[in-house]
């Protein structure tokens, strides 16, 4: 195979790991394209509505353009497998055997010389691997809103010691502990950016949020703590508020 073509396929292969970042980047590129075209049309004497309509028409449709770009960017079949794998891992974390594995692993890491704290999360910040779950968040005051239309957040599934291990401060409330089990109501720790966005003048502690990808699979979680903001995406991407869902029973309390 031609070396250039091989390089192209490798680029497509690796792009499946940072799909969201690429989506955001292309969205910004398209936005810039449309704004420039609209400005040109306005200079040519069109009304604002006409300028926008012509720019969109000439582009060939935003959705189609995004889809064509996405197809060229990655390997659609592999992306489907990747999504299935992530779904499988998500199911796996509900399995007690998986919890036991993490419990034992973290115990051993903690026992190593020089280790003061060990924690785990589904996607480490700044790793360049974009596999945190991109889901919707609905607060109690907007309870009727569909998750598809809700503001997007990144969801991180963590073990109780994660914040301490990463030196992310717990600003108020409590961390997860052994009392949080699958049998008790679901709890969440949110970060300070989310507080500023949704509860600028009140304490969110004790409030409930619904988080998930689809309305029929989303659960209500009670907010028990507020953590400092951590960079959960690559530095060149505007980080969305992060919500850390607490299901410590899956990673048995340390």
């Amino acid at each position, binding site marked *: 195979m031609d070396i250039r073509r091989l390089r192209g396929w490798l680029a497509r292969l690796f792009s499946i790991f940072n799909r969201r970042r690429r989506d955001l980047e292309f969205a910004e590129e398209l936005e810039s394209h449309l704004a420039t075209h609209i400005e040109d049309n306005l200079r040519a004497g069109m009304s604002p509505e006409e300028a926008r309509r012509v720019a969109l028409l*000439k582009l060939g449709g935003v959705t189609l353009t995004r889809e064509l770009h996405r*197809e060229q960017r990655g390997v659609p079949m592999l992306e489907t497998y990747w999504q299935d794998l992530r779904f499988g891992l998500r199911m796996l974390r509900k399995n007690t055997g998986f919890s036991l594995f993490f419990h034992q692993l973290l115990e051993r890491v903690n026992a190593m010389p020089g280790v003061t704290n060990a924690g785990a999360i589904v996607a480490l910040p700044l790793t360049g691997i974009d596999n945190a779950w991109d889901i919707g968040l609905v607060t109690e005051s907007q309870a009727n809103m569909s998750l598809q239309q809700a503001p997007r957040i990144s969801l991180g599934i963590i073990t109780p010691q994660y914040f301490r291990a990463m030196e992310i401060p717990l600003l108020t409330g409590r961390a997860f502990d052994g009392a949080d089990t699958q049998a008790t109501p679901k709890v969440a720790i949110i970060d300070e950016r989310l507080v500023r966005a949704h509860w600028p003048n009140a304490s969110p502690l004790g409030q409930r949020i619904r988080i998930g990808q689809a309305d029929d699979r989303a659960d209500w979680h009670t907010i028990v703590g507020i953590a400092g903001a951590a960079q959960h995406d690559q530095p060149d991407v505007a980080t969305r508020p992060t919500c850390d869902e607490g299901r410590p029973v899956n990673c048995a309390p340390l």
Partner: protein
Amino acid sequence: MSEKTDVWQGTLALMALKTLEALGPLHGYGIARRIEQISGNKLAINYGTIYPALLKLEQEGYIASEWGASDNNRRAKHYKLTRAGRKRLAKETQKWETTTEILARFFAAPEES
């Protein structure tokens, strides 16, 4: 009424390379616009189709991109030709000229009675 011609398959990438060689670093909108202008507005080009073509060229190392400010001070992604891109353009130009020359000979050949 003037009829517009669809972009022939595979030629969009070549036109984009040529545009970047002629004008230097340019954003996607500028490239699409230039292609349309150079064709005397005879090519029917959906501007959106330039992006998958540019992405493929970038994936294969023929062009590189970086974010910068456009003429109107808007943040835009600019594409520029790489050394491999220049080589490919030279090669493709030669191939294209040979093809058109051969076709021209066929069309110019007198009919045999």
